[in-house]
């Protein structure tokens, strides 16, 4: 009976998370655009799906993704091999990004921009190889970001100096990169980190910071995502300059 109550409560929580979107869309549809809401049943079923999905996700998060990230962090800290930890960090960043659907979409879009801007030939083949190169570039940059971020947790470097250095890198690259690529490069920072990567990487960082003496999980544990959203900007602009 108690678990039933808990399920109802978490379903209600998920519904509450969704209310703002439903409210905004209803308001604009009825009052600004002044149109009726189409396919009411389809929408109701869809909302039910979203609520269920969010509830399952949150439960899975606490059962699966968080413990995995933490366990791996503890196991690596116990093993004491920095080399393997860094290899793991890079593979995790690279592996989760290279197949990311949002990135595939952005890379395709970017290849169109490059073709229109005359940076590459406007053929299917050259566009595809451009998009693929871009994907690999972003994936390498995220792998590199997680690697540096993990190294930072181990060494206890303050995050702001690294991030500010990254910002300076972005600003310098902006002045040299072709103008057409800048918008995509800036956006690529935001799209690389998926819904599965974020909890995993966050738990890894917090786990590492709590298993190493002298590190504070709040100050040192967070920040991996920040690196992962900064380096793609620099690397994509670099890619635009080279290709």
């Amino acid at each position, binding site marked *: 009976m108690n678990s039933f109550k808990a399920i109802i409560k978490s379903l209600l929580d998920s519904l509450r998370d969704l209310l703002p979107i439903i409210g905004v869309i209803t308001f604009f549809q009825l009052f600004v655009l002044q149109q009726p809401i189409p396919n009411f049943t389809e929408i109701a079923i869809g909302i039910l799906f979203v609520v269920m999905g969010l509830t399952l*996700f949150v439960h899975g998060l606490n059962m699966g993704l968080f413990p995995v990230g933490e366990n791996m962090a503890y196991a690596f800290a116990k093993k004491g091999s920095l080399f393997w930890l860094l290899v793991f960090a890079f593979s995790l960043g690279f*592996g989760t990004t290279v197949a990311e659907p949002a990135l595939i979409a952005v890379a395709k879009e970017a290849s169109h921009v490059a073709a229109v801007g005359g940076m590459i030939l406007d053929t299917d083949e050259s566009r595809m190889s451009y998009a693929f190169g871009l994907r690999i570039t972003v994936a390498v940059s995220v792998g590199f970001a997680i690697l540096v971020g993990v190294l930072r947790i181990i060494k206890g470097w303050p995050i702001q100096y690294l991030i500010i250095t990254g910002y300076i890198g972005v600003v310098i690259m902006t002045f040299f990169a072709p103008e057409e690529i800048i918008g995509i490069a800036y956006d690529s920072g*935001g799209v690389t980190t998926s819904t599965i990567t974020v909890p995993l990487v966050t738990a890894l960082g917090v786990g590492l910071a709590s298993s190493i003496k002298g590190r504070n999980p709040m100050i040192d544990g967070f920040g991996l995502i920040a690196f992962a959203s900064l380096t793609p900007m620099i690397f994509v602009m670099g890619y635009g300059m080279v290709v």
Partner: protein
Amino acid sequence: MHIFTDLFHVILATIWDVLPIAAIIFGFQLFVLRKAMPNLKKILMGFLLVLLGLAFFLEGLEAALFPLGKLMATQLTNLDFILQGAAESTLNWWHYKWVYLFAFAIGFATTIAEPSLLAVAIKANQVSAGSISIWGLRIAVAIGVAIGIALGVFRIVTGTPLYWYIITGYVFVVIQTFFAPRLIIALAYDSGGVTTSTVTVPLVAALGLGLSTTVPGRSPLLDGFGLIAFASLFPIMSVMVYAQISEWVSKRNKDKPTQ
């Protein structure tokens, strides 16, 4: 109902997305760490729930909210709607007032529903032993995204260069970093990256595309980008402001009884 057959495809696609992650984790577990994972059954169950959850979530959004939201973005940015009968030569940035409001509202609303932000908020709440509240962080981030996207829309309408805004934003973030409580800095930087994923990106992309197609003088290929960049920058500032305000409030509350 094709929503159920679509769901099946989405589940397959989600499995495909998770495979590389699972391969890396279990590969390292088996060959490098060479130890059984504690509570393996429970963890696998958790992965399964995450998979199913994401699939339902995505399919639900695709069936219910995205079509309407995307259509709305196109209709709101349509010149006929913007001008409301006025001549095109009189068009100025204020005609887009509903678009700014929509950008602000949808930015806020989609961020509240963003699962990865929820995950980070739960973690931050655990790690800070409750001093960072889940809702406080989520609302702070959502306000940042809302302001960011509204300003990003204003940029597309006025056609000013993206990097002016972003570089100015960086300067603000750097200055704020020196004044913000130390505990929040890493989390604030992180919140820039977690805000834009499953829910926000498709709707915001539709808005950017709609605007850059219809605003005279803009090209969707060159001006349609940049909204995500705004949405990843402004939460950094709003989270630091949130931390400064909560620090200030708790300080004032502490001082009161002694007076």
